[in-house]
């Protein structure tokens, strides 16, 4: 009977009137902590993906295609010492985007629709905005982990010649969460999956991967297609990474543009997510 006897003593006395103040201050973290605990249930696939993904790409593109391109007259150009150095930052950003997509698509739809756990969170002092922030924060942790492992392999394959190469990591992380925030905003508006995520993968992510200056400089594309790169978080993240990892020559204003674009995308994605989370939970 201890539970019943203490019904009005323990937690209430412990937290008093400050309970909600503390929840509000740390709410984002509590949600992220919860998501990380849930991620533990698929930890094996997270680890396997993080290690095998960079290895297969680096072998195929860096060692395979890379040796072929580097041997041909003129190489890739764009100031890179090797094709691997050129493609490395793009693969890094791409890995960040992929993981961010995974963590901000189905988990968001599931939180509203399948497990309905976002409603459980909202029944506590936590609000919709904090749920959205927490989901993105947890995704960021996974993105950071993925990028760290990938960068380690890049360095191992000799694809990071500049002493500033480590700055390619924050660039990739930023491009990942900027993209993730927009996916979260979309996922939180979907009532049914209806193949939306598969469509995004085919019609957004795949073309973005191919046409964002990933495998060849964006300038090599016809002008009519270059816009795909300009609006792609992958291109902006990749270019930032190239400036860092092998000192790609680029005007300062353009480097600033990459940062502003990714920052704006993150802000927009978050603002739209806040709106839809709050509206949907208050229905």
């Amino acid at each position, binding site marked *: *009977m*201890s*539970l*019943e*006897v*203490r*019904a*009005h*003593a*323990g*937690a*209430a006395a*412990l*937290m008093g*009137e*400050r*309970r*909600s*103040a*503390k*929840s*509000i201050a*740390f*709410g984002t973290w*509590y*949600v992220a*902590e*919860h998501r990380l*605990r*849930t991620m*533990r*249930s698929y930890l094996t696939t997270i680890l396997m993906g993080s290690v095998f993904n960079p290895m297969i790409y680096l072998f195929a593109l860096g060692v395979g295609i890379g040796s072929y391109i580097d041997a041909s007259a003129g190489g890739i150009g764009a100031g890179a010492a090797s094709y691997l150095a050129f493609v490395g930052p793009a693969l890094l950003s791409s890995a960040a985007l992929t993981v961010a997509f995974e963590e901000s698509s189905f988990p968001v739809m599931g939180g509203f629709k399948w*497990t*309905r*756990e976002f*409603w*459980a*969170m*909202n*029944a*506590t*002092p*936590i*609000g919709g905005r904090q749920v959205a922030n927490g989901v993105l924060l947890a995704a960021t942790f996974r993105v950071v982990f993925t990028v760290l492992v990938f960068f380690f392999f890049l360095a191992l394959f000799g694809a990071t010649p500049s002493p500033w190469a480590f700055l390619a990591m924050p660039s990739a992380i930023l491009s990942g969460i900027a993209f993730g925030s927009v996916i979260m905003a979309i996922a939180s508006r979907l009532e049914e999956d209806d193949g939306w995520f598969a469509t995004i993968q085919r019609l957004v992510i795949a073309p973005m991967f191919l046409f964002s200056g990933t495998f060849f400089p964006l300038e090599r594309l016809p002008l009519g297609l270059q816009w795909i790169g300009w609006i792609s978080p992958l291109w902006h993240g990749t270019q930032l990474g190239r400036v860092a990892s092998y000192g790609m020559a680029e005007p300062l204003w353009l480097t600033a543009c990459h940062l502003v674009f990714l920052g704006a995308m993150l802000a927009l994605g978050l603002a739209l997510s806040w709106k839809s989370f709050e509206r949907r*939970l*208050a*229905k």
Partner: protein
Amino acid sequence: MENMDGVMIRARGLTKAFGELKAVDAVDFEVSKGEAFGLLGPNGAGKSTTMRMIASVSKRSGGELSILGMDPNERGPDIRGHLGVVPQQDNLDVEINVRDNLIVYGRYFGLPLKFLKAKADELIEFAQLGEKTRVKVDDLSGGMKRRLTIARALVNEPDILLLDEPTTGLDPQARHILWDRLFRLKEAGVTLVITTHYMDEAEQLCDRLVVMDKGKIMAAGTPASLIKEYSSREVVELRFGSERNAEVAKSLEGRGDRVEVLPDRILIYTDSGEEDLARIVEGGHRPLTSLVRRSSLEDVFLRLTGRSLIE
């Protein structure tokens, strides 16, 4: 706290409209400390919408609402910190185990891990889930998930526990286990607000209840007083077969206080069921089955709305 008069919840003209539809239409009620208060009505009566407004997640369209002396429009998170919510559909995290569900949820109230670890063990015992502590929620039965949801709602030691259709979808045995747990909380003085469309649940658990239909409160009182006011002491139930019920009912007019015809049976409201039944049989009627029983909240609802609770 500001609720010095012992009133935990006060609603005046509380309204929620979705476009043209008024899901809750100017309802008034009060819930006192330690009371088990019920909202009884069929699906779509506005019970869950009322509950979501009390839970301080859904904003009201009109009227006044005060919970623990606070306005949920102004201080939603503060109020929610003092509530325990058991929603109609379970929303546990099915990918993690029983204990982690309790701990993770307690964190949302800003409670420290040290407190929560002890609390989780205590709640697991209360929910009779001792053998399932490390089991993934996905692998629990419906009744166990429900008990875990109730345990989870107690993690912050709430002042008010809100239960939306707590036993819907459970088998009879699981319902009784759940009722037993809720009784214990009631005995301990926890204020309970329960929505249900089961009259037996309402009779068992609620000290006082309101009968809702189409967004309005039709009647309010204790289960006994409602039955006394809106029904007779006993009911004779007669079945003549679905084709004949309506026809036979005409010849039974005037028996007891009132005669109701449902598609599957005839109900005669009376204070002396056995005597009336004997007279009906003497009169030459031969029902396929007959039954004399006490009046219930189901009869109250039928009287108030002309419809059954479960349709």
